[in-house]
């Protein structure tokens, strides 16, 4: 199935070639979790600070749940603004 992976700020270096505007569509097996998806692209666990699934925050515990086709996963390291 296909999901969209978006990696922002310093995590952008982990995106594969062909990514546009910090996003790439990836094929993953059924049952893949957010944690497994981020492992595949080498995103360091300690840098997975703000993790959104379809724009909604996913707590560290929820990152083991399986993704669904068409989901969008967006991840940031620790950041803030004002």
């Amino acid at each position: 199935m296909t999901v969209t992976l978006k990696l922002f700020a310093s995590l952008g270096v982990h995106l594969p070639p062909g990514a546009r505007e910090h996003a790439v569509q990836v094929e993953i097996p059924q049952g893949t979790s957010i944690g497994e998806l981020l492992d595949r692209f080498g995103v360091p666990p300690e840098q997975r600070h703000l993790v959104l699934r379809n724009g909604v925050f996913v707590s560290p515990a929820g990152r083991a749940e399986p993704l669904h086709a068409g989901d969008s996963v967006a991840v940031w390291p620790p950041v803030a603004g004002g």
Partner: protein
Amino acid sequence: MGWQRRILRVNLTEGTCNPEPLNMDWARQYLGQRGLATKYFVEEVDPTVDPLSPDNKLIFATGPLTGTAASTAGRYSVITKGALTGAIACSNSGGYFGAELKNAGWDMIVFEGRAPEPVYLLIEDEEARLLPAGDLWGRSVWETHERIQHDHQDPMLKIAAIGQAGENGVLFACIVNDLHRAAGRSGVGAVMGSKRLKAVAVRGTQGVSVADPRRFLQVTMEKKRILAENAVTGQGLPTYGTQVLMNVVNEIGALPTRNAREVQFEGAPRISGEAMREPRPTDGKPNLITNQACFGCTIACGRVSRIDKTHYVVRNKPQYWKASGGLEYENAWAMGADTGIDDLEAMTYANFICNEQGMDPISFGATLAAAMELYESGAIGKEETGGIDLRFGNAEALTTLVEQTARGEGFGRDLGLGSRRLCEKYGRPELSMTVKGQEFPAYDPRGIQGMGLTYATSNRGACHLRSYTVASEVLGIPEKTDPLVPDGKPALVKAFQDATAVVDSSGLCLFTTFAWSLDDIQPQIDAACEGDWSLENLLAVGERIWNLERQFNLRAGFTGADDRLPERLVSEPARQGPAKGLTNQLDKMLPEYYALRGWDENGVPTAETLQRLGL
């Protein structure tokens, strides 16, 4: 100590500068800067005064930690009755000016009256005098800065000035110090212009004493280590600045877009903090040159940018080819997503003009966005805009109108009124995205519920910096709360409001609170200042300040009916993103908030509350 125990009273009508002892009884109740200057203001000014009349006063105030060795201790605030809002105004700025004023031996300057001719104030330690500014009037902030330093042959002079916007009565004019730091909101620059005060130039060499130097040094070193080791203040903010939020807030569906008609902007990645760091296709160089720190700051979140020389807007204007203050998140949102514009170079130019001529980019951008909706809805046409095709997304309209607004020319005269007056003038008041007359900033309260209550109850009109619940609702600082539900938000907003009033009154920067709590700030204040500065007392100080500001507004004519959001936010559901179908639930939050504050159902502090706070 911490305080210099001395204020400067400048009567512009009479042309006099007189020192006075600081009222230390008030300092013990209100700490400094925002709180203490508001106390002076409330005691001295009739709340019904016309903000642009000589009877309004303008106070530049430092905090007890301003100018000390604490990290970020360079802040000052400008307190007055806001030209844009008619409410209490307190606009906080960084840079180096505040610390210089404190080092010259002054806790604050109180300006009264109106000068018969334009003047500027020169302070060299204890010497203060008013000088003619006839040849500076009509000049930009940047020209004024250069001229004053040149005339006094002193490149160390720190200068806060108004540009053409403040002179021309643009109601959201700001005061710019150190070329691109600003006391930005509520029109404090218009008040300064109405007093014919062009600038304040300061050189200070006296130093700032603290009550317990050994303990102060020890505790400030310890707290700087926390800022350095924290991932947000040690890495995230210096690297990406506030602009990293553009993609975050867009992804969560809370980025007000095209005058808040929508909550997500398809162009967000192209105007984000990440985009500022990417090489441009035209010249291979990024928009961002470097980060920059204010006085004593160990975070250094500021942005310094350079515009692409080949871009249409500066191709024939080499004076804008040099590096200057770059886009912060709020500015990029207002002049980008809110206007539907995704041209980073045009937006950087508009930001430069806001700095050069002294305008608040939040209010300017949001007012332009309202004008664009007026145009697209047919309420105004090219006859009103002077031939400009004012549709959403038109970058040339932005770069033309930012100049016209500062100069008070063409349709810029209408934009200089601010969004509320503009939309009222053209018969569509519901298109103004304001609270108490001030444009709301870069967080849509349909997607971040707590920000709705924050905007509605902010004493200076809609503002994110009075209770930045985004920290909790989006970023998880100090702990994560759900942005889509109103539950628990009244208590969160009240706690943030009171704590922020303390930080703003100390002389420190609010951005430290991404890593510090009041538990970290309290020992720094306690080591610098004599007296009881326990955590309990500081929290009481914060709540006292909030209620004092509220009382001023009530006496100025505001009521609980002004604690309202624009109708769009409470009746038009978000069209996309996680908040799709939601409006802001202000009606659920406001009564609980009033009760937590000890206010009656009309938002008026009860006698018991006032007595408890010593008001």
